[in-house]
C-alpha cells in the first residue's frame, strides 16, 4: 500500500437521482438524491449515515449503476478511476459493466441473507460471479476460491452447502467472501450487518475490515447504526432528505459535529455512564416528493433563520477535511 498521491478512486459530482413515476397522468418526482458530490480515495473506508429514507441506499445504488425505472439519474456523474481504466459508470454499455462488475467493483447487498440462490450449492454462485474474471481452468479456479475462503477463516466445505444449511452469519460471511474473491478495487456495502445480532455483527465487521486492508480496496458502506460507523469508517458522510449535509473524518464528526442535524444525531447516541435523558428532534423528515424550500432541515432546525428558508446552503469547508452544508454551523469543539 504505497502512499503515493493518486487520483481518488471514485468521484461523484453533482449527482441528482430522482424516482419519477407517472400514473394516470399524475407526475410524481421523489428527489431521493439531490446534488451530491463526494470523492473516495484508494484504501479508504467511507461510511454513509442517515435515517431511513434519507436517500443513502439510493445514492449507493446509483453509484453501483444498479438503477432501474422509476429511479433515474437526471444530472451529474459517477466516475471510477480503476487501475487500468477510467469509467463513467452511467455512460458505459451492459457488456462493459459486466466486465467491470466483480473484477473492479463489487457489492455487498442489503439483506444479504437471501442473496444466494436457494436451489443451488454455494459453489455455483462463485462460478457464476467470479469464474469469468479469474481466467483459470475450473479446478484451479476452485482452488483459488478455497484459498480465499480459508484466508477469511471459512471452511472450504461451505462450497458444497446449500444456502439454507448455513446460519445467517455464515451466509453473510460467504457473501463477503464472494464479493472479495476477485480482489476488487472498490466495494459497495449496503447495510452489511443490519440483519445480524451484535456478536455476529462484530465478527462480520472485523472480516470486512481485514479483507479491505489486505486488498487495499476502497469501501463505501451504508448503515444507520452509528456505532458501526464509529468502528469501521475512516470518513463519514451524513445524509439528510436526499442531500449530503456533512462530511469529515469519523473522529472529527463524532467529536465536533458542525451541522445541527449531525449534532442532534450524535447527541442522541447513548454513552456509558451518561444518565441524562435523550431529547428527540421534533417533526419528521420531509416528504421528498415535495421538500421544503431552502435548507431541507430548516423546519426542524433550532438554529434556522430567514436565509435557511430561502436558499439552499452550499457545502462549505469549515476545517481541514471537514465540510458541512449549513449557514449557521455549530461551533467547533476542541479536541
Amino acid at each position, binding site marked *: 500500500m504505497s502512499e503515493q498521491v493518486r487520483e481518488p478512486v471514485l468521484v461523484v459530482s453533482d449527482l441528482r437521482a430522482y424516482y419519477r413515476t407517472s400514473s394516470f397522468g399524475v407526475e410524481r418526482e421523489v428527489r431521493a438524491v439531490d446534488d451530491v458530490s463526494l470523492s473516495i480515495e484508494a484504501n479508504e473506508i467511507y461510511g454513509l449515515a442517515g435515517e431511513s429514507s434519507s436517500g443513502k441506499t439510493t445514492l449507493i445504488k446509483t453509484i*453501483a449503476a*444498479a438503477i432501474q425505472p422509476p429511479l433515474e439519474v437526471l444530472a451529474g456523474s459517477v466516475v471510477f478511476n480503476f487501475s487500468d481504466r477510467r469509467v463513467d459508470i452511467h455512460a458505459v454499455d451492459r457488456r462493459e*459493466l*459486466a*466486465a*467491470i*462488475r*466483480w473484477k473492479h467493483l*463489487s*457489492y455487498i*447487498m442489503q*439483506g*444479504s*441473507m*437471501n*442473496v*444466494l*440462490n*436457494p*436451489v*443451488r450449492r454455494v459453489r*455455483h454462485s462463485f462460478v*457464476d*460471479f467470479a469464474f469469468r474474471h479469474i481466467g483459470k481452468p475450473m479446478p484451479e479456479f476452485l482452488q483459488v476460491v478455497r484459498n480465499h475462503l480459508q484466508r477469511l477463516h471459512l471452511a472450504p466445505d461451505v462450497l458444497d452447502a*446449500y444456502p*439454507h*444449511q448455513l446460519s445467517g452469519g455464515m451466509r453473510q460471511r460467504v457473501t463477503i467472501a464472494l464479493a472479495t474473491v476477485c480482489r476488487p478495487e472498490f466495494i459497495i456495502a449496503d447495510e452489511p450487518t443490519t440483519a445480524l445480532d451484535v456478536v455476529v455483527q462484530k465478527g462480520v465487521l472485523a472480516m470486512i475490515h481485514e479483507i479491505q486492508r489486505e486488498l487495499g480496496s476502497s469501501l463505501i458502506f451504508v448503515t444507520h447504526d452509528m456505532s458501526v460507523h464509529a468502528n469501521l469508517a475512516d470518513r463519514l458522510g451524513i445524509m439528510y432528505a436526499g442531500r449530503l449535509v456533512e462530511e469529515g473524518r469519523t473522529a472529527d464528526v463524532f467529536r465536533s459535529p458542525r451541522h445541527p442535524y449531525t449534532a442532534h444525531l450524535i447527541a442522541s447516541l447513548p454513552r456509558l455512564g451518561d444518565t441524562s435523558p435523550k431529547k428527540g428532534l421534533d417533526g419528521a423528515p420531509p416528504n421528498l416528493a415535495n421538500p421544503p424550500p431552502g435548507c431541507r432541515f430548516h423546519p426542524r432546525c433550532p438554529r434556522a433563520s430567514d436565509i435557511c428558508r430561502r436558499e439552499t446552503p452550499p457545502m462549505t469547508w469549515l476545517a481541514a477535511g471537514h465540510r458541512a452544508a449549513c449557514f449557521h454551523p455549530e461551533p467547533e469543539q476542541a479536541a
Partner: protein
Amino acid sequence: MNGYPVYLLTRLGQFALVVFIGINIAFIVTHATPIDPVEQSIAAATQYGSTSPEAIALMRQSLKELYGLEGGPIDQYFAFWRRVAVGNFGPSLSAFPTPVSVLIGRALPWTVSLLVVSTLLTWVLGNLLGGLAGYYRQSRTLRLGGLLAMAFHPIPYYIVAFMLLIVFGYLWPVLPISGGYKMNMPRDWSWPFIASLLTHSILPILSLALVGLGGWFMGMRSLVSNIVTEDYVVYAELGGVERRRILASYVMRNALVPQVTGLAMSIGAIFNGAIITEQVFGYPGVGTLLVSAVYAGDYSLVLGITTVSIVAVSLAVLLIDLLHPLLDPRVRAR
C-alpha cells in the same frame, strides 16, 4: 441427499394408502349401483328362448363365480382384492367373454401416450414461454403470446375440441378427425402407419394443449415476475452474471419448484379431460372405453378402468413428487 431414502419410504407409504382408499371407494360405488351383472347376463342369454330353471340356476352360479359375487359382502370384498392383486377383473359384460384386462390393455397405450405427450408438451412449452415472458417483459411477441394464452385459457377443452374439428376437419380439411389411425391399416409399425398415428393424434393433443398452455403460461409468468425482484436475482444482475444464466439457473430453476407441484396436482384433472377429448375425436383410448362401459352397464369394465386409473394417476403423482427434492434442496432437509 441424506433424507432422501426416508422421504422415498414415506412417499411410497402414502402412495399405497391412496391407492388402497381409492380402490375401496371404487368397490363400494360399483356395488351400490342397481345394475346386477349376473341378472343382466342371464337376461341377455335367455332372451331368445326358454331355458330350464335348473340351467338358469347353474348359469347364475357360474356367472357369480366369474364376476366375484359369491357369498356375502365381506367375502366379495376379499375376493375382489384377490382379483385386483392378480389384475383379473373378470369378463366384460358388453364384450362377453373378452376379459376386462384385455380390453383395458388394448385401450391404455392410446390414452397414456396421448396424456403423456400433451401434458409434457403443454407443461414444458407453457413454462418456457411464461418464464421468458416474465423475464423479458418488454418483448412485444411474448406479450402477444400472453394475450393469446389468456384468450384460450377460459374456453372449456371440449369447445376447443369442436372448434378444431370444424376448422381442420371441415373448413380446411387437412387432418383426420376421428380414430387412432387410418381404418383397416395393418398395425405393422411401418412408416405410413406411424405417420397415420401421428396425424390422428394432432387434433386431440392440440385440444388438450391449447387450453392447458394458458394456465402454465400465466402461472409461470407471474411466478417469474415475482422472482426477478428476489435478492438473489438482483444480486446476480449486480454481479454481472450472464442474463441467460440468470434466467435459467436463478429465475426458472426457482420458479419450477411450485410448477412441478402444480403438475402433480393437475394430473387427476387431465385424466377427466381425456375422457371427453377421446369421445369427441373417437380416439380408441380408455376414455371412450369407459363411456361405452357406463352406457352398457358394464360393471366389471367400469371397476377395472377405475382401478387402473387410480393406480395410474397416483403413480404419476408419485413420480413427480419423487422429482421434487431433486429440484429443491430444502424439501430434502428434514
